[in-house]
């Protein structure tokens, strides 16, 4: 089995926030969503979601509430807050700047 690339450090928070822009989700849902949207390229070590979610809660970027699922089970759903949306914007633009910069360096290296 080919090893899948690890998540870039520091990007997990951003991915979680992004996933939550569409609709409130529970932890399992977030993990599924990231996996699906990245077409199975990005897999989070699923458990590490939970410390990350607690960190986001603490910052006030997400809210959590217990709801019933479609299959009638209790699950904790996370919702993006206004502060979380703003934070997502900041993180995305920082990330894009970095990718751009990395890209420039790489293309320059190829030309040489």
């Amino acid at each position, binding site marked *: 089995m080919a090893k899948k690339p690890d998540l870039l450090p520091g990007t997990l928070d951003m991915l979680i926030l992004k996933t939550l822009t569409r609709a409130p989700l529970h*932890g*399992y849902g977030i993990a599924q969503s990231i996996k699906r949207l990245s077409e199975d390229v990005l897999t989070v070590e*699923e458990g590490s979601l939970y410390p990350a979610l607690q960190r986001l809660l*603490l910052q006030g970027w997400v809210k959590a509430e217990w709801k019933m699922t479609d299959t009638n089970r*209790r699950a*904790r759903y996370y919702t993006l807050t206004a502060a979380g949306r703003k934070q997502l914007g900041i993180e995305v633009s920082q990330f894009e700047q970095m990718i751009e910069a990395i890209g420039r360096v790489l293309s320059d290296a190829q030309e040489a």
Partner: protein
Amino acid sequence: MSSFFRKLSILFGRKRFRSELDEEMAFHRTQTEAELVDSGMSPEQAHFEAMRRLGNEGLLKERTHGVVGFRFETTLQDLRFALRQLRKNPGFALTAIAILALGVGSSVAIFAFVDAALIKPLPYQDPARLVELFEAIPIGPEFHLSYPDYLDWKRENKVFHSLNVFAPEGFMEKTVDGLREADAARVSDGFFKTLGVTPILGRDFYYGEDRPEAARSTLLSYKAWQRRYAGNRNVIGQTVTLDGHPYVIIGVLPKEFSFAPAEPADFWTIERPDGGCEKSRGCHNLFGVARLKDGVSFETAFADIKSIAQQLEKQYPDSNRDQWANMLPLTAKIVGDVRPILLTILCGAGLLLIIGAVNVASLLLVRSESRRREMAVRGALGASPRRLVRQLVTEGLLLAAVGGITGVVLAQLSLRTLTALIPKDMLMSRPYLQNIGLNGRVALFALALVALSAMLFAFTPVSRLRFTRIREGLADGDRGSAGMVWRRFGANLVVIELATAMILLAGAGLLGKSLYRLLHADTGIQSDHIAILRVDAQGDRYSKDEQRVALGREIVRQISALPGVKAVGVTSKLPIEDGDVTTDFHIIGRPYHGEHHEVAWRTVSSGYWAALGTRLLSGRYFTDRDDAASPKVVIVNQTLAREYFPGEDPVGKQITLESTDKNPMLIVGEVFDIQEGQLDAKARGAMYIPYNQNAYPYFSVLVRTTQDEGSMLPSIAATLHGLDPVMAIFDPETMSHKIHDAPSTYLHRSSAWIVGGLAVMALVLGAIGLYSVIAYSVSRRTREIGVRMALGAERAAVSGMVIGEASRLIVVGIAIGLAGSVPAALAMRGLLFGVPAWDAQTLIGVAFVLALIALLASYLPARRAASVSPAEALRAE
């Protein structure tokens, strides 16, 4: 801010937080599981795959808690766990704490003394700029100044901000119950200003208060103010009668003030130039104290004062020949004699602490080996390496803290005992040793010790924690190799312990031998069965020589009549004191150019010799008929005879105390040296003059008894009192007591005992250390021993192997210790008396004792090794 409150709310709803997290993660797992089953996996496989995907649950929970928890929570958790660990293993915990407490306790207690004597600044303003001044003469460097010399030094010098004089003084105070001895000091008018001390009540002496026409005045020490006047503020202006003169109390000195060279002193009176001695340049009765001018170095000042003394020597050759100036920093003078002892003892305590710490570290090492499996299990269950290290560090800190606090309590308790053991005279003349306690500096020292041991205790097990080997730890398969590494490491620790114990034992042995030599030094007297009393017969009744001679004769007659008295004598000064009171003399018939022949001189009665039990070398002792009516005679000691009559018999020669040939005295006898100074002082020339030819109103009575001398003191005092009720009678004591409590004896004895105590503790700890290392090594090698025995090794061979292993450690430890003992002993050779630092007898003796005890400590585990049953040992694995 809001995150802080959220953390806080989680802290109080910790249970709910946990159950919610559990539920959330369980939900995640079930969902994954369901999905996997849907995709065709067997339920069992799906269960494990879901668990694997989620990751290490314990670690995740820990991390989640880490996000929302406060830092102190984990610390508390670690602490609780550490406490549980220690409680679970009380034997280990108690041993470690006891050893550490012992080490820290003794170090801190001794440091408190070091602090009081050597670190705490003296209670004067800028004490480093103060010096004490003396005149040096051929027989010694620290003799008194004369008053005229003081005035010249004061006027001529360009280096002192101020120069003053002082002298200890004993007055007879007139009280309603008759005369009483009062401890006092005489000081010149600017003395307290030089020290930078201001009275807390009343005023200081004003300049010129020492003029003869000024009223006599005195300051009170704080203690005397409290004791005699109950701290009454109206004391200012009251009068005390000292030596028959009224003195007005003008002030009270601060509580923290003390001045060791003149202590003990209740009254600080003004030094007046109208005393008999003060008029003569040849009469020396004062010490100088001066403050250096700003920017003037000690050396410059010393050179200046020396040149002044040389000038005076030229100017007044009669009185000042061979009178040089000497100067010492005041601090050196005050604490000089206790400094080497305290430092030696502190080093001893430090060594003991090292042994203790090494011992605890090796215990921790043993424990960390036996906890390897535990650590591996905890690592497998999700404890991060950082967390494991934190746990071990917490345990080390806890151990060090509990041991340290116990040690400080121990120190506080032993301080009280130790101060109580210091003789009263010693304490009075060394005021800085009073009120020793735990202050800020001592607390800081204790804290530093605890921090250091905590570091050691945390580092030792952490160094043995190998994270890469978690699987091996679980399997515990590498027992052999780990045991090997540990044995090497543990063996080094034992060598350190044994070497340190050896150094301490050697030090104790040498100090003990010095003390023995000191107490058995030949003092020239038989010190048992001698009772002593001091008498001060002042006043008109004894103003004439004949009256004083009659008093002496009457005292001897009446006390001799008491039952149990063998001999009675009087003397102007007792032996085994400071050896002071000296005189110059010259030998009749020899060319005289004003050379100084300074020797001790005493006036003694005819019974003196029998009372002390001295030994006559040639000639005769005095008789009662050697009085004013008969020719003047003198007895000299062996040292005087050797120095001034080499190769001749001094008996029959004549000497005189004058500068001309007038008043010759015939030497009638030569006695074996009587130790006039302290026990460790060098022998010095001395001459003895008949009391009946030179009677003093102030003398000591010596009584040789057949029964217990102490019990005779009351009846002797009663007899003297009956003879003259007004006469002051004081300081009853016995000669053996006097020798026992003499400052030099005390210093030698206390250092010998304390270092001895430390050495015994070191010996015990070293033996425990060796025992635990060997015992542990045996327990790790049970299988190996089993194999050896199964293959036919004899029991004796097995125990021999273990003892052989121990012997190598013992030999190396003792050898290193021996090599270290000699420099250590050289460093403290100032404390040794009659014993060289490399005294082979002592070194070999203590090495033998240490080796014996160490072999005993290794014999027990060796016997256990030999009793291993091969079948069981092999099955146990």
